[in-house]
């Protein structure tokens, strides 16, 4: 080969290509900044009205019998407790069902079974929550909750929690399954090679190796449960307001349902001046809660990348 002297111009590249790259970069930058701008706008509008609310409301109204915005009773704990109870019930349903399904799909199912099970679960994840809400109201409540607890009301936090549990189970199942399948085959081989059976391999090797992904799926599911509106709106009752209670067999109103009923006018917003502003305050609270959960899950996911 003969060596050709090279000029700086040859190495400078095609200016057309460089211009194109600049344009593409600009498009992505606009998209990125737009989404950031929208987030900021949401926070600003939420925070502004929330401030209006908190500066005008009598602080004693924030800690009373229950959440009755029409009557000027803004008991925040009522909403937080209802959200907590329903989320806990949902997680009690979703953790065993979701993780069980994930373990089955990832480790036990034959490729053929997996081929139709996985899409089925994914379809389940796509069911609109209003459908599940209706189902919670017409099936879970009369056929399950009221059968077991004969004296319970048709609208209960338990029925809503079970409905939300069904909603988030596919999420836990699919994300955890991905995490478990991502565990390298070599680790499974190591385990089987040492005389471990399948159950031991799943419990002692696959699960611990996938734990960060599994935890991430649970946090994701939890923030979905906290943010879920339609099911609790339909099945937990207490549309006009709720008394503060820890009893899951009572109706309850979550933060999301409170916002929905205020905003849709199911509750007469006009009745009390500050009711409208309280919506923003609850919204901000919800936003911060989900933000916290998301950043925790981000941190867990980052750790998960380093595991093996």
């Amino acid at each position, binding site marked *: 080969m003969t060596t050709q002297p090279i000029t700086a111009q040859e190495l400078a590249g095609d200016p057309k290509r460089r211009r194109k790259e600049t344009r593409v970069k600009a498009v992505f930058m606009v998209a990125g900044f737009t989404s950031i701008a929208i987030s900021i706008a949401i926070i600003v509008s939420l925070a502004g009205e929330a401030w209006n609310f908190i500066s005008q409301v009598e602080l004693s109204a924030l800690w009373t019998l229950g959440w009755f915005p029409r009557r000027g009773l803004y008991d925040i704990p009522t909403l937080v407790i209802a959200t907590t109870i329903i989320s806990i019930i949902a997680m009690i349903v979703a953790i065993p069902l979701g993780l069980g399904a994930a373990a089955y799909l990832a480790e036990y199912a034959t490729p053929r079974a997996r081929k139709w099970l996985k899409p089925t679960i994914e379809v389940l994840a796509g069911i609109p929550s209003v459908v599940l809400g209706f189902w919670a109201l017409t099936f879970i409540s009369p056929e399950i909750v009221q059968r077991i607890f004969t004296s319970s009301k048709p609208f209960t936090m338990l029925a809503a929690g079970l409905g939300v549990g069904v909603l988030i189970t596919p999420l836990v199942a699919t994300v955890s399954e991905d995490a478990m399948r991502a565990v390298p085959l070599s680790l499974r081989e190591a385990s089987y090679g040492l*005389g*471990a059976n399948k159950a031991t391999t799943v419990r002692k090797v696959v699960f611990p190796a996938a734990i960060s992904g599994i935890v991430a799926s649970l946090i994701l599911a939890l923030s979905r449960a906290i943010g879920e509106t339609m099911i609790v709106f339909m099945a937990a009752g207490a549309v006009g307001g709720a008394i503060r209670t820890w009893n899951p067999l009572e109706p309850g109103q979550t933060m999301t349902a409170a916002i929905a009923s205020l905003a849709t006018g199911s509750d007469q917003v006009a009745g009390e001046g500050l009711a409208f502003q309280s919506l923003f305050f609850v919204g901000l609270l919800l936003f911060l809660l989900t933000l916290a959960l998301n950043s925790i899950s981000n941190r867990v996911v980052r750790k998960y990348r380093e595991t093996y």
Partner: protein
Amino acid sequence: MTDRIETHLGTTEEGQMAQEQANTSTTASDVAATSAEDSDAVRTSGGDPDDLNPVIIELENVNVYYDDFHAVSDVSLPIREREITAFIGPSGCGKSTVLRCLNRMNDLIESARVEGGVNYHGVDLYGPNIDPVEVRRRIGMVFQKPNPFPKSIYDNVAFGPKIAGYKGNMDDLVEQSLDRAALWDEVKDKLDESAYALSGGQQQRLCIARAIATSPDVVLMDEPASALDPIATLRIEELMYELKAEYTIIIVTHNMQQAGRVSDRTAFFSVDIQDDGERTGRLVEFSETATLFTTPEKQETEDYITGRFG
């Protein structure tokens, strides 16, 4: 030596607890006893046919299929106790496939099907009522790429004994296993640290320690040093040589110098390309390593060996 064989033969069908205990109790005393036998074993593998070590695994007309693909055809060969048997041959000739038949690792591959007999102490490993879990406790495996668990060094070694319900002193067993794998001095101060903090060569020795912690009878090694530098490789080879005193070792290697250095017997595999383009592996020649490398019987073997050596 005979004690061990009888223990295994007698209990293959028995409950595992009794087996486990018998296993661990023999090996503890074996450590002392076998070091004296070591030189003996090496010498006998040299030639005199009357002094051959007993056969521990006998392959009889083994055929392996992946779905319809005939990967390995008609392999028959004896593996002798406390020897190192090497499998060599070009890539894709089925060395790993045959090796994985010996502890039923191929069960993990949905499409794999094994025909023929793999007799371990006279018991067909593919017979009815044979639990692959029991097989793998006796025939351990070290893989090509070091694959420690993402756990501490200690937990890696303790994994096998723990799941087998080991009742003795775990600390001692971990130390003993790491010591036998020539790793103890390097890791004794950091047993709680992640195994991933070790170098590749150390990880592979950890995997060997992990495999021998369950007191297996046979250790299968699939290119155990191919991911390591020459010094770490030499270290593993020395280790295999030491382990030969207590274990039967079968090693797959691409490195013919390595096969020549460490093994007592060598099996050379090759591939036949069928009319339909299917590549089926078969055993070409099996004999003592020294013989196979100096005066091979088959032209094919000689071509492969000399070709490689240039």
